[in-house]
C-alpha cells in the first residue's frame, strides 16, 4: 500500500470523493513527509499547516454531507512564492518582500480554492524569479532531491523539488524564460509553460510581463492536465488574458499519437548540448516514432539570436516592473534618519534587492536608455518577430517540436552562480517558447549519472491539448516518471 503522500493527485481526488481516503489523513501524511524532506531539500519558504488541516477537515465534512465539492477537493497544492495568497506571506524569495502579506488572492489561487484544492505552503524560488538554479533566494538555495549537491533548476526550484520529493502532488510555478520547465527537467517531474494569455496573471508578481505565464507542475501528465484545466480561463482583471472558453485538458489524454508530425530543430541538439542529454532525447524521439509519429529534422535559423533577444527584453521589462518597489506602500524600508526621497529609495533598493535583481534592473535601464534603446531593446523586439515567424512556419509543417529542455545535466550548487553570462546560456532552449508565446511542456526522459533529463515538447499557441497528448503517450510508454528520488 502506498502512503497517501505517494498518491497522484488524480488518484487522491478520487479516493477522497469516494471517502476511501480522508483529506485530513492525506494532509497529515503530506506534512509528515514535508518534515522528513525539508531539512534536505528546502523547497518551501512558508508552510501553512494549520490552515491546510482546517480546510481538509472542512472538505471531509462537506463530502460526508454530500455537498458539492470541486475536482481537486482536499488535494494539496504548493504555490510559488511570487503568486499572491491572501493572508499568507508572499515574499518572492526577496528581502524586499520578506514581510509582505497580500490582501488578496491571485486569480489562480481563487480558482484552486473554487475547486477545493488545499494550499500547503509557498515554495522557494530565485529572487523575483530571476535565475536558473533557485540559488539567489534570500532564504537560501533549494537542493535537488536527486542529489543534494546539485541545483534543482529554477526559478521555480521549490515547486519542482516539492513535487519530486513527495511534499505535494501538484504545484504552481511561473515561467518567464524556462522557470517551470527547467526545474521540472532537473527534478524529473512534469511542468508546463502555457500559451501566453491562457492563464490570468492577476496576482502574479511581475518580472517580464510580456513573457511570463503561471503554469502547473506535477508528478505525471494526467495530474498536470488536471491542474491546467483548473487554473486556465479568461479573467477580466488581466488585460492580456485570452477570451476563450475553458477546456478539459485531460480529454485527449490516452488518444493515440499515430500520424502526428514531430519536428526536431537541429539547433536544439547542436553544439553546447551535453552528450548524455542528446542521447536520451534521441531515444525519446525514436520512442515517439515507434508510437507512430513521423519525425523530421528542421532548422530554425533565428535560434542563434533568441537568447540575447530574450535577456534584453526580460531585463528591460524587469527594470520597469521593479520600479514600483519604493518601500512606501509595501516592501523593505530601513530604519534610518531619512534624507530626501531619491536617496532613501536608492539605498533601500540596494538593501532590499539581491545582486542578480539589481544587475538586471541596471542592465534593463541601460537597454532602454536614450542612445541604446534602438540598438538593444527595439532590435530585440524585431528579432522576436523573426523568431515568431520561424516558429509559425515550423508549425505549418509539424504538429509539435521536440528537443531537450536543458542543454546540461543538473550542475553543482555554486558552480555557475558567480558567472552570470554562463548561467544565462543554460536558458537557450527554453526562452523561445516565451518569446513566441507558444506552449511547451517538459517531461522526464531519462537519467545520466543518477541525474534527470527532460524532454521538451512545444506546440503552436493554444495547442496545449496536443503537446499534453504527446507527453502523455511518451510517459505511458516509458518508466522514467516512475523513478523517485531516495530521500
Amino acid at each position: 500500500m502506498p502512503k497517501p503522500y505517494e498518491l497522484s493527485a488524480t488518484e487522491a481526488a478520487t479516493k477522497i470523493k469516494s471517502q476511501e481516503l480522508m483529506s485530513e489523513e492525506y494532509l497529515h501524511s503530506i506534512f509528515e513527509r514535508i518534515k522528513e524532506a525539508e531539512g534536505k531539500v528546502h523547497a518551501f519558504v512558508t508552510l501553512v499547516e494549520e490552515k491546510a488541516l482546517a480546510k481538509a477537515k472542512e472538505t471531509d465534512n462537506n463530502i460526508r454531507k454530500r455537498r458539492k465539492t470541486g475536482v481537486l477537493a482536499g488535494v494539496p497544492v504548493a504555490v510559488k512564492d511570487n503568486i499572491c495568497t491572501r493572508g499568507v506571506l508572499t515574499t518572492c524569495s526577496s528581502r524586499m518582500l520578506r514581510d509582505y502579506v497580500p490582501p488578496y488572492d491571485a486569480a489562480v489561487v481563487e480558482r484552486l480554492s473554487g475547486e477545493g484544492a488545499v494550499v500547503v505552503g509557498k515554495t522557494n524560488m530565485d529572487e523575483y524569479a530571476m535565475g536558473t538554479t533557485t540559488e539567489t533566494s534570500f532564504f537560501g538555495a533549494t537542493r535537488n532531491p536527486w542529489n543534494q549537491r546539485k541545483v534543482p533548476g529554477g526559478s521555480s526550484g521549490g515547486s519542482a523539488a516539492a513535487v519530486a520529493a513527495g511534499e505535494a502532488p501538484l504545484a504552481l510555478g511561473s515561467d518567464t524564460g524556462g522557470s517551470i520547465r527547467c526545474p521540472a527537467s532537473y527534478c524529473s517531474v512534469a511542468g508546463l509553460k502555457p500559451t501566453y494569455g491562457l492563464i490570468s496573471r492577476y496576482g502574479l508578481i511581475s518580472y517580464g510581463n510580456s513573457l511570463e505565464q503561471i503554469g502547473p507542475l506535477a508528478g505525471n501528465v494526467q495530474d498536470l492536465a488536471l491542474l491546467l484545466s483548473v487554473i486556465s480561463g479568461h479573467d477580466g482583471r488581466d488585460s492580456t488574458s485570452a477570451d476563450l472558453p475553458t477546456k478539459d485538458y485531460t480529454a485527449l489524454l490516452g488518444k493515440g499519437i499515430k500520424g502526428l508530425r514531430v519536428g526536431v530543430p537541429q539547433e536544439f541538439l547542436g553544439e553546447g548540448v551535453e552528450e548524455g542529454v542528446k542521447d536520451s532525447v534521441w531515444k525519446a524521439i525514436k520512442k515517439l516514432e515507434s508510437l507512430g509519429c513521423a519525425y523530421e529534422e528542421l532548422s530554425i535559423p533565428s535560434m542563434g539570436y533568441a537568447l540575447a533577444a530574450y535577456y534584453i527584453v526580460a531585463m528591460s521589462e524587469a527594470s520597469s516592473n521593479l520600479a514600483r518597489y519604493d518601500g512606501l506602500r509595501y516592501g523593505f524600508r530601513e530604519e534610518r534618519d531619512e534624507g530626501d526621497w531619491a536617496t532613501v529609495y536608492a539605498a533601500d533598493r540596494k538593501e532590499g534587492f539581491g545582486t542578480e535583481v539589481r544587475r538586471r534592473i541596471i542592465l534593463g535601464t541601460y537597454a532602454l536608455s536614450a542612445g541604446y534603446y534602438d540598438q538593444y531593446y527595439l532590435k530585440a523586439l524585431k528579432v522576436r518577430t523573426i523568431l515568431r515567424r520561424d516558429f509559425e512556419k515550423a508549425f505549418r509543417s509539424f504538429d509539435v517540436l521536440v528537443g531537450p529542455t536543458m542543454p546540461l545535466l543538473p550542475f553543482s550548487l555554486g558552480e555557475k552562480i558567480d558567472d552570470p553570462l554562463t548561467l544565462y546560456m543554460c536558458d537557450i532552449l527554453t526562452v523561445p517558447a516565451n518569446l513566441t508565446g507558444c506552449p511547451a511542456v517538459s517531461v522526464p526522459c531519462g537519467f545520466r549519472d543518477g541525474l534527470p533529463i527532460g524532454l521538451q515538447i512545444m506546440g503552436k499557441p493554444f495547442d496545449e491539448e496536443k503537446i499534453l497528448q504527446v507527453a502523455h503517450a511518451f510517459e505511458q510508454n516509458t518508466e522514467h516518471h516512475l523513478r523517485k528520488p531516495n530521500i
Partner: protein
Amino acid sequence: MGTNKNKRISREEVEHVAWLAHVNVSEEEKDAFTEQFNKILGFFRKIDEADTEGVPPTYQVLDLVNVQRLDEVGESLPKDESLRNAPRKEERFFKSPRIV
C-alpha cells in the same frame, strides 16, 4: 545610434545607469558589474547580425489591441487592509520621505 556599436561600458557609466535606476551599488560591485556588463552586452550585440530591415517589433504576442472595460466602480480594499503592508504610516496615510 550606430556610434555606440562595440563601445565598452565604463565604470562611470555603470554608476550613472545605477543612479538612473535608483539602485545603489557598492564600490566592489561597480568593478564587478563593469566587467560582467561588458561580457553580457558583448553577447547581446550578437543580434546586430540579424537582418531586421522592414521587420516590425513584437511588443506582445497576442493580437489584442486596447482591451477596455466599462468604467464601473467596483469593490475596493478597506483602508486598514491597504495600509497593512506599509513600513511607515501616519493615521490613514502612507508616510513618504521628503519629496522636495
